[in-house]
């Protein structure tokens, strides 16, 4: 991250969440951070939990038993729903991340233009990409949801 001068982060963490008349992309930014932190927490635990495969079948079954439950039970539903949340976070973070990378590299932000009324900003150029990426994330989410809740529910 670049160190900047003259624009202190006075709102701190609350600055992520503040509402007002922010655009769609600003809320994607907030969600990107929240999903990123959630995915990081899960990933650190995932490294430890899945390392059991190095110790053989019994250790693997024990480790998986700690983070799952039989279908149709409250414990099973709890872990399935939790895992689906991680999948949802991945779907959003991945496609929004592609949008951010494209914008960072200067794609889909339009060419510089004269500030002639009615004014247009690069946001006008970026918005379709944001919508397409969110639709892609939604399709992936629905597909995964079928796998999580329809196929494995019986």
């Amino acid at each position, binding site marked *: 991250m*670049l160190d900047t001068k003259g624009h202190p982060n006075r709102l701190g963490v609350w600055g992520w969440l503040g509402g007002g008349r922010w655009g769609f992309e600003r809320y994607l930014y907030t969600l990107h951070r929240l999903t990123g932190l959630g995915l990081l927490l899960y990933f650190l635990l995932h490294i430890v939990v899945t390392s059991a*495969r190095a110790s053989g079948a019994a250790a693997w079954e024990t480790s998986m038993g700690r983070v799952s439950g039989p279908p149709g039970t409250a414990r099973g539903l709890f872990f399935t729903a939790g895992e689906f949340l991680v999948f949802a976070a991945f779907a959003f973070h991945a496609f929004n*991340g*592609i949008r951010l990378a494209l914008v960072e590299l200067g794609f889909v932000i339009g060419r510089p233009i004269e500030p002639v009324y009615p004014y247009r900003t690069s946001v006008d150029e970026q918005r379709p990409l944001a919508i397409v990426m969110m639709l892609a994330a939604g399709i992936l989410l629905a597909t995964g949801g079928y796998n999580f809740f329809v196929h494995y529910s019986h």
Partner: protein
Amino acid sequence: MRDQRLWTWHVLAGLVIFVLLGLHMAVMHLDTLLGWFNPEGLKPIAWESVLQRARMGFFTISYIVLLGAALFHGLYGLRNILFELGLGRGAKGLVSVVLALGGAGLFVFGAWAAWTAGALARSL
């Protein structure tokens, strides 16, 4: 300059994660539709499925690359968020060292697990 270089690596690591984690998610969570790399009729987390993937060198290598890319991407992202909270110079240095050492330790542990599981699967 160093921060710009790290930020570029952060973006590149994100692209690597998009591909490799996308494959991992497809194998693990779209199995009923795609059925990639899973013996027929078995869940992706069944021990037999784990063994089958572990026997494939591609998975061992891709897990280790994904592990490194995701640890860097995630911990560098966390570092940026923490830095935005107005930490002092000393605290920033401490955060950087703790995250770098923690990330390196987890990478060694995770890579060992992936490599050992591959060797175990091939010996069975």
